[in-house]
């Protein structure tokens, strides 16, 4: 069997991270193809239900990209995302689930390199972690 390839669901903010990903592409920076990007208008539009659903249905990781604090197109969306992430992580810890399978990172439209590095790092980290435990649990 070939090496385990993690599957990542990515939610990229339209104004920063998605453009950052675009820049990575147009700059021909290589990064692993493990993430399936979904463009959202703001990182704060990513309700926890979408993160949890991706995990429950077998994604090995979930990536959320937003504008740097202070740069949100909607002024304060990412600050709220940040608080929700704190809550999300706390709940994951309380339930004994692996919070490291969800990554939030601020990536601006100018940071193509940072985007590529982030996805590379995250993919490698998940590769080491191995299959998501939910991937084999059909009864969730």
């Amino acid at each position, binding site marked *: 069997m070939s090496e385990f390839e993690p599957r990542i669901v990515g939610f990229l903010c339209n104004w920063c991270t998605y453009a950052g990903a675009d820049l990575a592409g147009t700059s021909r920076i290589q990064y692993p193809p493990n993430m399936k990007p979904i463009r959202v208008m703001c990182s704060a539009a990513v309700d926890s239900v979408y993160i949890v*659903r991706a995990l429950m249905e077998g994604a090995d990781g979930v990536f959320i990209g937003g504008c740097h604090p202070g740069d949100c197109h909607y002024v304060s969306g990412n600050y709220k995302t940040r608080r929700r992430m*704190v809550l999300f992580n706390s709940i994951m810890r309380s339930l004994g689930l692996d919070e490291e399978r969800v990554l939030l990172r601020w990536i601006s439209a100018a940071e193509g390199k940072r985007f590529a590095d982030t996805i590379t790092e995250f993919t490698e980290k998940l590769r080491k972690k191995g299959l998501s435990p939910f991937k084999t649990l059909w009864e969730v």
Partner: protein
Amino acid sequence: MSPEEPKNLRAEGRSGRLKVEGGDPVATIKAVCARWLKEGVLSAVMLPAVSRNGVAAPALFSDPEAVRDSGVPFLPAMGVNTASVVDEIAFNPAPGVKVGVFLRPCEARAVVELVKLQQVVLDGLVLIGVDCPGTYRAADFGEVAGSDGANFVNRFLQEQDRYLAENRFRTACTMCEFPTPLVFDLHIGFLGMNSKEALWVAAGSEKGAELLNGIDIEAIPEPESRQKFIEELRTKRQLRAEEQIKELDKRALGPENLVRYFAACLNCHNCMKVCPVCYCRECFFESEALERDLDEVVRISRHKGGTRMPQGTLLFHITRMNHMMTSCVQCGICEDSCPVKIGLSVLFKKVSRNAQKEFDYLSGRSLDEPLPLVTFREDEFRTIGE
């Protein structure tokens, strides 16, 4: 985390001993309610009631005689969280209509959360917070109380030690750190008091102080014996909570244990429907958003070889936690409503406590404290996202 003095409903007003008539605290409070109605201080009063036909539920009375007849202040049986009822009626205040609502501490906390969630408007309400050493499940109450449910309350108040030692309360109550209300217009207390003789009464606001007009209150500081009683009860409950959370950790942590913990879940969503702070008029999980076509379900089943139907039970619970844990008041009414008896009280106790700690927040502590998820500071949680 200790409850702070609520800032916004702060009493300039009065506190002290309310003399109990005829050794009957329940009748005394009912007489006070009747007086409020008669004098028009309140348009109606909502409190637990027991009817001849065996209905035990919160009821809204506008007739003084009806209160005397069926009202049972301090009834230690909980079938609904009264905040859910308040949520249904207290959005459009009408001029001149003022309803006094008896609330247990967890119920008062839920009302505070609902105010902050913009579901309840306090204008037409007077929050009458009462002490609560614990409540029985409606189903157990008959057995504990015997045939005279209403008179049981006086026995319950007079033999507090005995009933506390027995500890047959609802699971959530056995872990409750808040036997006294945190936010209130008027507080009526009996814990650590000789309730045959006197109750503790304190106004928490102007509104509450108005209710005390013309009622004879002996102005004294809160008795030390009462404070000690409450402190000891809180300590005991905190220990009990730690014990139960330790037990929970043995069986509910991690993906497989969590699946096992929720294995019997029917996806009935009762826990959500009875939750006082789960406020959405239409729940995402009951919307069309999660409906799927046959081909999609089949495709999803291929990822794992199969899929449990109905889909998304654990998804529902974990997402609900993400939506509600900062406002959870740990009343445990979710567990009571669960047809398959999933241990939600202790789970939510743990998860919500941890979650609220992250934001130095305590649900229902204060009307001034903004909800954690609608506010932020620029200079916080700096490591996240970097």
